[in-house]
């Protein structure tokens, strides 16, 4: 059975690193892997979506609605938006950070209320204050690695595999902070 993991967030939050690390862990487990990213305008605060699929043999790099085993959401509203992609029985991991999109900022639209409750009502969800954990690890930019840590716990790959890939992907000078951030996420639940 193929596994489909969807990573959503806001341009600039570091979602690409997360998908690359996950992809490389899946390879080291001997799977066929496809990772799909959309580049280009993503620096400018828009919604960003990446898909990671692995298994015996993967054809399409894209995940359709109702097909994601896990959704890793870097922002609350983006988590809510992505819900239709979650498979029945799937799990969503949500960073509780909120970033207002422009239609909300200019007062055209409202940031929906009580998103956490609404998500909890519908699906199996865990909520993480990754910003706080990243601060604790020593760098607020490590939010993405905290979230990778939380996700890692929800996959079959061993802890050591993740650490190994992390060491290969993250620049040496940030490794210590990132290992700490990963552990905080990994041991959170």
């Amino acid at each position, binding site marked *: 059975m193929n596994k489909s993991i969807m990573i959503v967030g*806001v*341009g600039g939050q570091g979602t690409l690193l997360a998908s*690359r690390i996950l*992809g*490389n862990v899946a*390879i080291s487990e001997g799977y*066929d*892997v*496809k*990772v*799909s*990213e*959309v*580049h*280009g*305008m*993503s*620096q*400018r*605060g*828009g*919604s960003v979506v990446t898909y990671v699929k692995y298994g015996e043999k*993967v*054809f*399409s*790099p*894209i995940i*359709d*609605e*109702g*097909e994601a085993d896990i959704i890793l959401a870097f922002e609350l*509203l*983006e988590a*809510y*938006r992505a*819900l*239709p*992609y*979650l*498979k*029945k029985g799937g799990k969503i991991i949500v960073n509780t950070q909120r*970033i*207002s*999109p*422009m*239609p*909300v*900022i*200019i*007062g*055209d*639209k*409202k*940031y*929906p209320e009580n998103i956490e409750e609404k998500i909890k009502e*519908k*699906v199996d969800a865990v909520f993480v204050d990754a*910003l706080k954990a990243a601060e604790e690890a020593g760098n*607020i930019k490590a939010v993405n690695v905290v979230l990778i840590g939380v996700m890692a716990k929800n996959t079959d790959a061993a802890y050591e595999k993740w650490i190994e890939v992390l060491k290969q992907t993250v620049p040496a000078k940030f490794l210590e902070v990132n290992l700490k951030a990963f552990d905080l996420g990994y041991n959170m639940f």
Partner: protein
Amino acid sequence: MKRLMLGNEAIARGAYEAGVSVVSSYPGTPSTEITEYAAKYNEIYTEWAPNEKVAAEVAIGASIAGARSMSCMKHVGMNVMADPLFTVSYTGVNGGLVFCVADDPGMHSSQNEQDSRHYAKASKTMMLEPSDSAECKYFVKKAYELSEKFDTPVIIRLSTRVSHSQSLVEEEERENYLLKDYTKNIPKYVMMPGMARKRHVVVEDRIRALTAFAEDCEFNKIEMNSSKIGIIASGISYMYAKEALGDKSSYLKLGMVYPLPEKLILDFASKVEKVYVIEELDPIFEQHCRALGIDVIGKEVFSLLGEYTSEMIKKSVLGEAASQKIELDEEIPVRPPVMCAGCPHRGTFYVLKKLNLTVSGDIGCYTLGAAAPLSSLDTTICMGASVSAALGMAKARGRDFNKKLVSVIGDSTFIHSGITGLIDIVYNKGSNTVIILDNSITGMTGHQENPTTGYTIKGEPTKQVNLITLCKSIGVDRVVIADPFNLKEFERVVKEETEADEPSVIIAQRPCALLKSVKYTGNCVINDKCKKCKVCMKLGCPAISWNGENIKIDATQCNGCGLCINVCPFGAIEKVGEK
């Protein structure tokens, strides 16, 4: 060892392994990374050219001189290089010549979703279309052999999902490709009528030879499963179909999408009860099948618009319902891309909006100046059109209209094709005002150097086009530099230049806030002098928002650029934490 590679990286790897030594391109999503990855190989001379036409011609020259060469572009870039394309089809090549063109179905970051397969047919050249990264690399290497064997440029067609997906690729050694001899060959390379007539005969012979090749080449493959359903598809659509239908259907995968085989398709169609053609965008395979007398199902069920999904294929072909999915019971606000916090373009558009000018727009990060709340751009057509279209507007509506009209164009776009429009203004006695938004980089496509930045793609310092002398030398006497964050002065300059009865250029100079060299520090906060007038919110800065009671500046978004401090009439915004 296999590793994950973007389709675009795999194309560059394929070029490297094929012994390519010259790559010239102009950036454009989703093709840009091919050239950026190529630049990492010391063995490949790589450059950013001013535009796609120049880039293609550099590659053509390198090929004629005996090297294997490449030029890469997005789909609309092929419009710009179409002129040399149609004639290099006549001359053919010496060293292998490959053009990579990346389409963008769904328009993730483009102004249209044209189908570049039409160009292969129109220019009578060979086109290949890979479906994943491993094929990207393999097809490129084969493309060089075929280019030389059939004496033709080869086009590799990509799409966003192939270019920007990563899948497994095995790296191999670089071929030791020796330059082909260069010998003067006037009948082959000088395309004046007498010689071109003879070359046209060669082109038609070549298309026949390529069609015969398409019948049993390794790129076009039949996979027989069920005889009930047959799918004809290429590129990413083939992957969507495989995902959706698996063994429940048979497939004719077309890796060579021009010229198309005839016998092979007839043979496949005869083996299955129903044939579906699944191709994003235009019905090119479908029309080919119909011309062969095959009754296929195509655009009557599959859209001409946007991207396909496995789910829609499953539904249309098997009639199977989609997976159960969660319904949301409220509307969720969209999150469109916005100008970054600290973006220099924000100051420019704030002033243009305030002056209520008609703004002839162009393509780049500044196209976002059309989005609310700045909403100040009036038009966007194609690169360079801001300048020439404004001349047309002024000629159509006259002097008074022109006094309330400006063009805005980025530095890279100005060099790409804005300069020719400006020459038109000077030559034909226009009196337009053109604002060059000089943010010291090609921003939109992810920070590429260009002729105005002073660096090459490999990061080497080089001569820098001086925009002031350039504009003056073509006859624009009024050229001013202004800082778009100095709002008062910028407004004064815009008023003065639009008033003038002669051509003028304003260079709005301030670097992109995402450049490493730009070091804004601290962040802005609202103090108790705030009267809640919301003037600062007219900037459309992603860090500034209204929570129903107060204006707030989000410290995680703000980079301390300070533009909001300049607009606040009450001194209610100040900077903290400055280093």
